[in-house]
């Protein structure tokens, strides 16, 4: 009945689940076993031989990625013997490796480098000139660059295109020393998830064309967040950096392992959506197209809101966090304004697929629904025709519909520089999605929290802080 067995790892008695893959169990114990080909999403392939451990009773070291946990097993992951085995395998992996770390974007997060530094340190026994040459800087399409010389032939990438995306673009060509990864002649990568092979590749053989030569990874800082590309809300790492004399800037998104949401991967569109955060930002507050201070704009907005509460429609959007939506909803309840979350423009059926992507390209519609914010079309159109003051908060609905603003007073809160600005009476910039803290609920009702790590030189206020300022200004007047 019992599935729990007793095993010994490095002299310590522990309990493990019978039949589990040994390497998985070692990872859980925070024992970092060097490995190239094994990946929890792709399973065992057993080709790299890097994950060897000593198991008492077996003649030779065994690969831990293909060894099931058995009762009474005695495993050694350290010791002179096993470390010598690892060094020898690493030496084999490096025989034809170009060691061009200075020009390689993977440097700093490369498994070859890490394992070498952890235990290599042998003298090279091969002349640099006699190394087998192959193609470098091959553009595989979909923002993926291939360097065949750096490849350790772990087949993670080919297994990804075979088993995960089922697009089968990649394969291994030629034999022995001359084996290389490539696409079939004339073919390019086509999956919308292709860039995941950049993360999967343990070395610098597959790198991102988008990130190419932009930064060295050890300069980057990182915080955990979610992608706002669709209502799936995939977990990501945001890699950013504030360089000397420059402003904080995001350089890339990487998927974050999260078994409640996205598993191990993210889609390419979501991955590249970091650009939206950097580009096209709204920086200045304005009243009737004239730049004013934030203070002046706030006073102006407070005046308008206190003067016509019953004639005001607040239009929020599913890009706002649960906290922001709750704050504005409470304001509406207390002050007699009306509230809508109408935002059909974020639906895009063509974006949905059967992996991660959904047809709703906004991160928090479920949160908006949970707060019972009305997004009914008929109600919205009715309110729009009745109300004289329209407050648009991070909602792009009017982007191509500015004619609807005729005879209205328009207040715009936006993190983006939009055309709507030209038709708005008062414009106030707000912090963008990743510049603020907040929680978001995805289409599967998983709520995730973002704690932003971005520190801009001149940060614009978050919606929460600005809204609270407006509330207290209104109170002063009343």
């Amino acid at each position: 009945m019992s599935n729990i067995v007793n095993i010994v790892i490095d002299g310590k008695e522990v309990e493990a689940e019978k039949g589990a893959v040994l390497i998985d169990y070692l990872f859980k114990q925070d024992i970092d076993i060097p490995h190239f080909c094994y990946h929890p999403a792709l399973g065992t392939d057993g080709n790299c031989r890097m994950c060897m451990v000593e198991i008492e009773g077996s003649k030779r070291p065994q690969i831990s990625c293909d060894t099931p946990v058995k009762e009474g097993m005695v495993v050694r992951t350290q010791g002179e013997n096993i470390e010598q085995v690892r060094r020898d395998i690493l030496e084999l992996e490096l025989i034809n490796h170009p060691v061009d770390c200075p020009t390689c974007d993977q440097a700093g997060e490369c498994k070859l480098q890490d394992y070498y530094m952890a235990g290599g340190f042998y003298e090279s026994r091969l002349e640099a000139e006699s190394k087998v040459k192959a193609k470098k800087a091959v553009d595989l399409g979909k923002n993926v660059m291939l360097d065949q010389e750096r490849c350790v032939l772990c087949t993670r990438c080919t297994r990804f295109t075979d088993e995960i995306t089922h697009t089968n673009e990649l394969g291994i060509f030629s034999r022995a020393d001359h084996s290389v990864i490539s696409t079939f002649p004339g073919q390019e990568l086509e999956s919308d998830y292709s860039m995941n092979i950049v993360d999967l590749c343990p070395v610098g053989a597959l790198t991102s064309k988008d990130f190419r030569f932009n930064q060295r990874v050890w300069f980057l800082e990182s915080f955990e967040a979610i992608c706002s590309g669709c209502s799936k809300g995939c977990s990501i790492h945001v890699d950013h950096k504030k360089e000397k004399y420059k402003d904080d800037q995001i350089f890339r998104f990487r998927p974050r392992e999260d078994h409640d949401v996205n598993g191990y991967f993210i889609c390419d569109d979501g991955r590249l959506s970091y650009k939206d955060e950097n580009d096209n930002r709204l920086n200045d507050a304005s009243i009737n197209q004239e730049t004013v201070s934030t203070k002046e704009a706030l006073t102006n907005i407070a005046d308008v809101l206190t003067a016509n509460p019953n004639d005001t429609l607040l239009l929020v959007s599913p890009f706002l966090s649960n906290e922001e939506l709750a704050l504005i909803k409470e304001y509406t309840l207390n002050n007699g304004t009306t509230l809508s979350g109408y935002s059909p423009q974020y639906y895009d059926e063509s974006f949905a697929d059967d992996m991660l992507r959904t047809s709703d390209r906004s991160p928090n519609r479920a949160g908006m629904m949970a707060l019972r914010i009305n997004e009914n079309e008929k109600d919205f159109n009715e309110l729009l025709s009745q109300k004289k003051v329209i407050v648009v908060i991070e909602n792009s609905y009017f982007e191509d519909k500015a004619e609807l603003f005729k005879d209205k007073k328009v207040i715009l809160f936006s993190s983006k520089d939009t055309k709507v600005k030209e038709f708005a009476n008062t414009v106030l910039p707000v912090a963008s999605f990743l510049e603020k803290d907040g929680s978001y609920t995805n289409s599967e009702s998983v709520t995730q929290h973002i704690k932003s790590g971005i520190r801009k030189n001149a940060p614009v206020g978050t919606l929460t802080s600005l809204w609270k300022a407006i509330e207290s200004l209104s109170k002063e007047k009343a």
Partner: protein
Amino acid sequence: MGIKTVKRHGDTLRDKLYIPAIVSGMKTTMRHFVTNIKDNSNLITKSYPEVQPTDITDRYRGVHRLTKREDDSISCVACYMCATACPADCMFIEATERTDGVDEKMPAVFNIDLLECVFCGYCVEACPCDAIRMDTGIFSFVADQRKDFILSKEALLANTRSKDFSDD
């Protein structure tokens, strides 16, 4: 961590009076004064800038230069090792694709702010390509605007090894 208390010097009455120290200092000054008045042919002080130093050694760390390969193209591959090692954080590099077939990567921008540089030479030590050196022998660098102290890639490439130094 334990704290080690070190006894201060200068606590004695003789030290606190200052006079004995001043007198002994003046004695040295006067001795040099008299010697130099009598014979000024071997003064250590030079009338710089009319008289330039002649004793700069090959190991002297002067203003940087970027070296070139045998085909006269830039050696630097924009790996940022120097910028990573630099304690003054005064190297500003932007990498770009290199298309001439010599290598994959090179700097589009390579600026060193000499006002921030502490001339430690760590950048030279860190470079895996022998692409940056401080062997120009340039010990004095003059400009009247801050921005002119920022050496560009072109300026660094134009600098050469000091003629006074022996061949590599």
